């Protein structure tokens, strides 16, 4: 190395990995907050459903405790909208714009980028659930907290499953198609997932076909009734998470 150091004299090196990850997570969160449609999708729709179906008789529910039915369903819906719909759309476009490729080839590295995305999604899901639960409580919902750890457990499984599915479709489809598919699935699940209407009664099979309905039912069981999560729901969400993450790991594309 020459003695007279110039402006560009090489001095390469990676900042401490926790600094790198923290800065990337912050960027992910800032950019999410900046995209209006993402915020509306993640908070606006669940809020409307919560207040509309929870406080009025706009829809038929299989119970008189409307908030006890609707609030846990809305919490489950939020997990899906953020971890699946939002993430699929964002990841599809980031792939299209070459962002994944570029960041993967920076000191952040590919595993670092995936880790930062996961933490950012976790933060968003957590914040949204706290905010929506607070609105529910203000509206008159009285949650049962004895089974809270189980509620958190199924939520982590659901988040993992949705994230895997999001990364999978963002890797397989073009960004525009990803957006359309993710939004369509969101709307279909909102209708059939037992959020503001009763889900079609498919018994245990329903737990495996409709992860949103399974998650919503688990949250109703724990947070409204203080009961334990049915074994078939644990099994269903575990399967969804395992299959989705495995498929995503195999098919994920950086560019």
């Amino acid at each position, binding site marked *: 190395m020459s003695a007279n150091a110039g402006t560009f004299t090489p001095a*390469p*090196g990676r900042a401490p990995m926790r600094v790198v990850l923290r800065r990337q997570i912050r960027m992910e969160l*800032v950019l999410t907050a*900046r995209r209006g449609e993402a915020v509306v999708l993640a908070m606006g729709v669940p809020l409307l459903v919560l207040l509309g179906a929870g406080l009025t008789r706009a829809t038929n529910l299989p119970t008189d405790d409307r908030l006890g039915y609707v609030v846990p369903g809305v919490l489950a819906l939020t997990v899906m909208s953020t971890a699946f719909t939002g993430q699929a759309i964002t990841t599809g476009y980031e792939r299209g714009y070459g962002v994944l*490729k570029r960041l993967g080839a920076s000191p952040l590295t590919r595993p670092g980028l995936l880790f930062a995305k996961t933490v950012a999604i976790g933060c968003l899901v957590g914040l949204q659930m706290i905010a929506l639960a607070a609105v529910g409580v203000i509206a008159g919902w009285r949650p049962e907290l004895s089974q809270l750890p189980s509620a958190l457990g199924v939520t982590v499984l659901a988040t993992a499953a949705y994230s895997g599915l999001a990364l999978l479709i963002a890797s397989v489809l073009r960004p525009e198609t990803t957006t359309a598919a993710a939004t369509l699935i969101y709307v279909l699940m909102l209708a059939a997932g037992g959020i503001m209407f009763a889900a079609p009664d498919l018994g245990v099979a329903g737990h495996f076909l409709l992860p949103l309905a399974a998650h919503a039912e688990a949250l109703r069981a724990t947070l409204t009734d203080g009961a334990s999560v049915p074994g078939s729901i644990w099994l269903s969400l575990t399967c969804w998470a395992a299959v989705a993450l495995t498929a995503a790991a195999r098919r994920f594309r950086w560019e």
Partner: protein
Amino acid sequence: MREAAVEVQDVVVRYGGVVAVGGVSLTVDRGSILALLGNNGAGKTSLLQVCEGFRAPDAGSARVLGLDPVADHDELMPRLGIMLQSGGVYPWATAGEILRLFASFAANPLDADMLLDRLGLRKFAKTTFRRLSGGEQQRLSLALALVGRPELVFLDEPTAGMDVGARQTTWELVESLRADGVSVLLTTHLLDEAERLADHVVIMDGGAVAATGTPAELTAAAGIDLLRVRADAGLAVGELAARLPAKAIERSPGEYEIAGALDTHAIAAVLGWFAAEGAQVTAVDTRRRTLEDVYLALTAGAAR
């Protein structure tokens, strides 16, 4: 002696059945600039992708700073600066945000504001990437490649889409990189860019190396290839051509052009002929072969 910055050996890249790179070898010495020159589709970017670790070669090997770009990816990346041909930035992030993000990834980053100033991007610091023009996006990508103070930078068509002023600024910046000891591998289809910047030029055509050497070596071999002489009009210049391995014409009255591989003897013969004809020679002008002539001769003439 440290290993070369880049050492590529017989690299082959295939996309399905199509061979994009068909067995290319090259070396980038430390602290030097190598330009990969070629038309679109010559295989320049595919070769760069191998060096950047985005894909493994289908055959052959690449060593970058002594490391394997795929297997040692995470160890190598902090030492490299990569400028993609386009994109690579969040459309909704501002120029300042994204540059500071990349700076925060590095142990000893350059000052982000200094870089924005050097590249004429200071006034766009709060502009989102998608609102920047193509040339501004290119300059920001260059800044992202440099902010971590890398040992080696890969620049894929660095001045594509830039106006004349920005191109000049970028060239000066690349020259200061070399002056400060950074190694550079760049691709370009611009002959003046290769001629101005490169210590070493590798001309690629159809996935293979068509020629290699310093710009001077590539152009010097041919020497003078055109002699323009102004003299009395109407001389029988066909007679001159018959004695030389060259063509001679009277382009316009009194303006003669003698074209061919002209060595010293041939030039002496040309001027001797004019003297023997009793002509009054009032101007002599020579033209050397340029990189463009070499390039066009090598690459089937499809350039520009």
